[in-house]
């Protein structure tokens, strides 16, 4: 009985959390910035005439980066599929590499506001967690320090592959939800208290 009360408490908190989990008032809500637009979605999305250059880009409205990035490398990095950021990660970097102005959307290219601080990853990703690489059972086996994404369950309830990977690849969106769906600091999909997010994939 005691357990059930605890569990009920948890589900209550969870439900309350969900109710606040939204992009409005999150770091990705630029509607009050005074530049560009008062709409929340517009800096990234448009219902019409979107940029379909990047495959599967959801009705993309922001100018995309043309940067060739310096990639992460390390003697202990096992992946052999690390490439230039692709898919949704390239969309993120269209603000977060600091080369494209924040208000360069809807055809505007003359923006003057650029991302700053730690959110500006720059054009070198050598000091950032690698993205746009395939994370599958083969990689996990070869590395020895990663959970099998096909079977390991995340805090979200599904496997790593189901919950965090996009087309078998680890992308920015594996850790971050741009729309703040989980209401965690740094727009994380899984809160990193006790490094739970890191330890979802890293078997350390």
């Amino acid at each position, binding site marked *: 009985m005691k357990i*059930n009360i*605890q*569990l009920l408490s*948890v*589900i209550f*908190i*969870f439900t309350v*959390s969900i109710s606040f989990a939204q992009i409005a008032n999150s770091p990705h809500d630029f509607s009050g910035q005074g530049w560009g637009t008062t709409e929340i979605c517009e800096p990234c999305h448009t219902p019409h005439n979107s940029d379909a250059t990047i495959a599967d880009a959801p009705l993309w409205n922001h100018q995309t980066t043309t940067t060739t990035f310096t990639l*992460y*490398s*390390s*003697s*202990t*990095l096992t992946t052999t599929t690390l490439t230039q950021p692709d898919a949704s990660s390239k969309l993120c970097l269209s603000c977060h590499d600091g080369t494209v102005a924040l208000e360069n959307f809807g055809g505007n290219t003359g923006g003057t506001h650029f991302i700053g601080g*730690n959110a500006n*990853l720059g054009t070198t990703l*050598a*000091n*950032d*967690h690698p993205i746009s690489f395939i994370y599958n059972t083969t990689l996990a086996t070869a590395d020895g*320090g990663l*959970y099998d994404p096909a079977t*390991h*369950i*995340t*805090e*979200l*309830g599904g496997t790593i592959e189901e919950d965090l990977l996009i087309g078998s690849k680890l992308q920015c969106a594996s*850790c971050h939800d741009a729309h703040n769906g*989980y209401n*965690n600091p740094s727009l994380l999909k899984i*809160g*990193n*208290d*006790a*490094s*739970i997010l*890191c*330890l979802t994939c*890293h*078997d*350390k």
Partner: protein
Amino acid sequence: MWQTVLIPGYKYSNLNAVIRLKANIIKIVFTVILIPVIVCPQSIVNTKHNLSVSGSGSIKAESETEICVFCHTPHNSSPQKPLWNREDPALNYNLYSSSTTDATIAQPDGSSLLCLSCHDGTIALGNVLSRTLPIPMAGGITTLPPGNSNLTKDISDDHPVSFVYNPTLAGIDGQLNNPAILTGPVKLENQKVQCISCHDPHTDLFNKFLTATNQQSELCNYCHDRTYWNSSNHKLSSSTWNGMGSDPWPHTEFTTVAENACENCHNPHTANGKLRLMNLQQEEINCLNCHNGNVAEQNIETQFTKPYKHNVSGYLQIHDPEEPNVVQTRHVECEDCHNPHASNNQSATPPYVSGMLAGVKGVNTNGNDLNPSQYEYEICYRCHADSPDKPPSPTIRQIEQNNVRYEFDMGNPSFHPVESAGVNPNVPSLIPPYTTSSIIYCSDCHASDGTNSPKGSHGSIYPQILKLQYLTTDYTPESAAVYALCYSCHSREVIINSTGSFGNNVHRRHIVWENTPCNICHDPHGISSMQGNTTNNTHLINYNTAVVQPDNLGRLRFEDNGTFRGRCYLTCHGEVHSPRSY
């Protein structure tokens, strides 16, 4: 958000499958939300390296919950990999060096530098790049407190890191495995030994984050392949500590000599004896901590409390394993005569070395270096033969010689049978099993006194580290006791009571009636053929000139006139033999 359940003893996993079996639909729903996280001992979460507030060690954060953050950050890391979140420590370490190291040791690099960013004690544990202010640690701790895990800037007392370990090094050293075999838990990083070769910072399966157990020095042996080690007692002995005195194994959890293996004597970190990472700087204490009757059966330590000894405690850091076979600067340490990597219980007969002296370098009868010594005396010759700093003779004689290699040479007119059987075919006093074909060890005479004392010339109550009493002072009244050493091989009855000129006129007259010690006429080691001859120096005759003087014509000599016959020219005890024959 929701609670994470940490249950030690299990691997991270969810319990969905188990709980589904219980057919409790409510619990299934809750479980999906909850995903209980269960942690096993090999996760960093349950190690001292979990510096977050949930850490199990005594050093942890005041409130920080993130674990990885103390070392890693997903963004804006330092140039160091992997995604390093700390600044590098200054490269001003005091490095390990020793005469037996063949590796080129430079300032730490690679991942070792990352470890040292906490473990040199200079950078605050909570000082991470991804935070504006250092993460506060419980108890106000900033840098790693003094202790075994704080290596400090002086890493000269730690196993070297950041050196290239390649087949060339293994070839030069001769006692390292070819690194090509390192496909198991001990790994190199870009051909270099680094901290991670022995330690896995994320996993603490074997204590001290070791990558393999060091029981029986398994970890050490991945790289180190010591000559003779496989037959050494220090590898094989199941002896345990009896609990008396100081703990011989303070830095391990192992309880037998075999289990401690290398760590019986060596300490890979903060070694008190920096050179060769010995447990203690005072060389002999490394041995005597066990060889005091508390682990090893024989108490060698007691022998060194006696007045006459190989005074191992009298020298500090003079012995060097790389020193010449012929010792140049006088000293003695246990390792001058014993090789702790080789010593074993193998018995031997003279002149061959026993297992206790296995694997020790020496000097042979021709004065040539050899390694290992085949015969026991070859070890003695390191110091007592050609050494420029060898001890003087205790007795002044007609023929002066303190190079015992010359004294025992088998070409000499007479010598005690150490290198080979003696030259005299007629020694009636010999007590069986000794015969004129016998060979004896130096340590048959020079050994610890006492009936049950351990073998070897460790220490004695008698001068010259003699096993039994051997008085040399003139006018000593004869007894079985005063020449017990000689009488242990040479029958006292035969020497002083036999009839005929040899017993009556020579020995009884001098030893018993004149109270003259054996040592006055006999030179116990031998007389070199370079100085003596087969007329004047058979039967070890080489007079002690403090007692025996020339006759009235200035003659001082013995002449051998055949079996049991001789003639002496001398003055002694006021008697002039000018000459006197027997």
